[in-house]
């Protein structure tokens, strides 16, 4: 639910990083915070458990600059990935304008990726939204683990499991090393802003 302020010419856009637990959602935001510190004027807000897992969400505001005379303020959120935190995941999705689904490429995570995507669809339905119409992209994280001999799913397999029927933009990535983190963010912001513009026209 983007808010357009015509007085100050500001558009606020909400992007949520979704996906299974320990998949790299928080690591995406941490990388963005380091890489774009000139555009981020606040500390990243995290609500964590003692075990350093996301309990409620991570939050970071991101100034994109001017587009068609409007200042774009992007609010980046992550959700807690663990299955037991569904109530809070659902709350964070409220008013979402775009989603990055961060899948874990490790072969052992195949089922949890599929379950998390199904859970996303169920939670969106509560807000009368769905993946057919909402702007979203996929990120296949941890591809670099293959170099260490850890079995990872192929992009074809991940596409088959998660993107079949959707055909959304997908980015093989390493959030830890920063590979394709910025490209993922750029793509979802572009899709969300285009969607808002179309909605208003």
């Amino acid at each position: 639910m983007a808010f357009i302020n015509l007085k100050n010419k500001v558009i606020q856009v909400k992007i949520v990083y979704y996906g299974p637990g320990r998949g790299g959602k928080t690591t995406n935001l941490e990388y963005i915070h380091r890489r774009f510190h000139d555009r981020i004027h606040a500390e990243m807000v995290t609500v964590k458990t003692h075990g350093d897992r996301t309990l409620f969400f991570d939050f970071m505001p991101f100034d994109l600059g001017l587009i068609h005379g409007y200042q774009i303020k992007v609010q980046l959120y992550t959700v807690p990935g663990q299955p037991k935190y569904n109530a809070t995941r659902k709350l964070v999705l409220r008013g979402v304008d775009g989603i990055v689904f961060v899948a874990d490429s490790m072969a052992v995570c195949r089922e949890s990726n599929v379950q998390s995507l199904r859970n996303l669809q169920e939670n969106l339905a509560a807000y009368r939204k769905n993946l057919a119409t909402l702007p979203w992209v996929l990120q296949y994280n941890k591809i670099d683990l293959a170099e260490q001999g850890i079995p990872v799913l192929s992009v074809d397999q991940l596409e088959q499991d998660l993107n079949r029927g959707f055909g959304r933009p997908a980015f093989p990535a390493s959030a830890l090393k920063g590979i394709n983190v910025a490209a993922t963010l750029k793509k979802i912001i572009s899709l969300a802003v285009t969607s808002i513009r179309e909605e208003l026209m």
Partner: protein
Amino acid sequence: MSYTLDQRQLDRIEDILKADLVDNGVRCVFLIDMAGNIITHMDNGEKQHDIYSLAALAAGNFGAVSAMAKIIGENEFSLLFHKGKKENIHFNKISSEFLLITIFGNEISLGFLRMKVADSVEQLKGILEPLVPGTDG
């Protein structure tokens, strides 16, 4: 779904918040939506807060408390207020999509604040309710 407020509407909202709350000694007031977007904020110039983080946490906090209310069979908790040593924070729902948050010191009583907030909320409803049809969930 997106929504827009124009200069006239935002000026009217700011006039209401200034007259009812800031001029009556509230340190900071901000109007947000349940997604955590800031519609407007005003303060008395004494302190600068990280308002974007505050808005995100406030929307999440209000959502969490509403979800707790539903679990124990309440529709919602009508009073949401956190008391600190010097600063206090008060949340008031305007409609299913909007929330008014005030930060105030100990020189204002909670009763007086609630009365002034209630006055503001009644006026704000007229501007905000037509904007976004409510979504439950």
